């Protein structure tokens, strides 16, 4: 028996009013028709509570696209879970926020794309920035944990100081400065998103200074992007070790991107219990522990810290999910990441056309720079 998972990631829908170019959702999105029903999700939360899981992280897509979200939050809370809503805020107004808080929402995390309206809307591919600012004000009326999430990359890192000052005004307890992870749409747009070394170094210094200055008011978490790190990230805290993700159609995944892995099938919560999936399924056992590990992981002192990195990234970059994550400087396939980093540093970051007046104009101008995330049917 392995110990039970600590938290559930409930990816309740892939529908989203934003089209962020750094989205890590899969390129093949699940449509509304394939989504789990309200009753299916309630059963998932009850099982999670019985398994002793502590947190339910609601994500998507945009979770608010589900009209039954208040009911789902209520059910998760009733099952004993700490409820966290990861959202763009689009679809939320005063009444709906109040209803969510009344249903037992513990924590809300809102993402911003930039501090400057035009740039933010350009990255999101939607005109949403102003609404988010209004919403942040509304959130502070409640006794609710509030985190602002800032996804950073080549196009906005040069303004990090301004963005932190912008967030400070909203007075969240926490700020997450999340470097883009290259999966899904972000991987397709990597050349436009991967920062330069100089950008990154400057950002690290800015974050350290802000952490110092804001200690006790805002907790700032930031992790170096894995393309620039010496060792890979401990993806999901290890495969099948702490977290279980349920995707919109009910498949249980050990990693957000797991469905890209060839030849693997994932159990559906419509057919199997969470406990059985966690303990018995081939998919959750496949890369659990150390038996699957190749060299240099197998004899590496860090194998119990980073678990060989991310299996999906190994497949996406090296074409083989059985090799060490190429983000690791010790990986035989590390050259793949070095090449991407070299290319990112060969030219200065692209100047963005933020001076255009109309949003439509912006989208037209930047068509060749990146692909906007689409929406499922």
């Amino acid at each position, binding site marked *: 028996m392995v110990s039970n998972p600590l938290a559930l990631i409930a990816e309740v829908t892939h529908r989203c009013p934003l089209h962020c170019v750094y989205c890590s959702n899969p390129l093949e999105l699940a449509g509304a028709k394939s989504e789990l029903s309200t009753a299916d999700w309630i059963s998932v939360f009850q099982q999670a509570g019985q398994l002793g899981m*502590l947190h339910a992280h609601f994500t998507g897509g945009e979770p608010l696209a589900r009209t039954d979200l208040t009911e789902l939050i209520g059910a998760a809370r009733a099952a*004993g879970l*700490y409820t966290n809503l990861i959202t763009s805020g689009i679809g939320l107004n005063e009444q709906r926020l109040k209803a969510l808080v009344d249903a037992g929402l*513990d924590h809300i995390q809102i993402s911003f794309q930039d501090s400057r309206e035009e740039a933010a809307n350009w990255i999101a591919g939607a005109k949403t920035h102003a609404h988010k600012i209004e919403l942040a004000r509304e959130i502070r009326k409640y006794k609710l944990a509030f985190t602002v999430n800032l996804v950073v990359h080549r196009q906005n890192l040069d303004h990090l100081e301004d963005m932190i000052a912008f967030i400070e005004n909203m007075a969240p307890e926490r700020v997450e400065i999340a470097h883009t992870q290259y999966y899904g749409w972000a991987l397709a747009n990597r050349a436009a998103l991967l920062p330069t070394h100089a950008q990154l170094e400057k950002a690290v210094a800015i974050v350290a200074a802000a952490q110092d200055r804001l200690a006790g008011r805002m907790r700032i978490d930031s992790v170096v992007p894995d393309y620039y790190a010496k060792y890979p990230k401990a993806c999901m805290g290890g495969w099948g070790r702490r977290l279980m993700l349920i995707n919109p159609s009910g498949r249980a995944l050990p990693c957000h991107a797991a469905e890209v892995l060839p030849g693997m099938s994932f159990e559906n919560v419509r057919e199997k219990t969470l406990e059985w999936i966690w303990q018995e399924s081939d998919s959750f056992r496949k890369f659990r522990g150390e038996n699957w590990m190749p060299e240099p992981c197998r004899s590496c002192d860090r194998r119990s810290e980073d678990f060989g990195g991310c299996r999906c990234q190994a497949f996406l970059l090296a074409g083989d999910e059985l090799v060490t994550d190429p983000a690791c400087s010790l990986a035989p396939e590390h050259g793949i990441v070095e090449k991407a980093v070299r290319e990112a540093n060969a030219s200065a970051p692209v100047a963005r056309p933020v001076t255009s007046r109309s949003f439509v104009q912006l989208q037209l101008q930047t068509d060749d720079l990146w692909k906007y995330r689409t929406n499922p049917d």
Partner: protein
Amino acid sequence: MAPPTDSSQPRLAAGCRWGGTEQDRVILFPEGAIKLQGTGRQVLEHCDGQRTFGEIIAELQKQFGQADPGKIRADISIFLEQLQKKRIVDY
């Protein structure tokens, strides 16, 4: 931010709450949970936003009769300051 003063009223920060079972009590917060046993649990159970830091120290000094009262105060002050930096406690 400074350590708590005698008139501070320590409490769990917004969105942080008790959870788990009576035997395994935890503080739940956005990015995780801390299991609290023994002294840590006792201290936080006193942090109800009503009692002042001065009162909490006095009560706990009484309970831990043999220990050095100065050390009790210093330890609890550091404990609360650390949790405040993590945004789990406010005072």
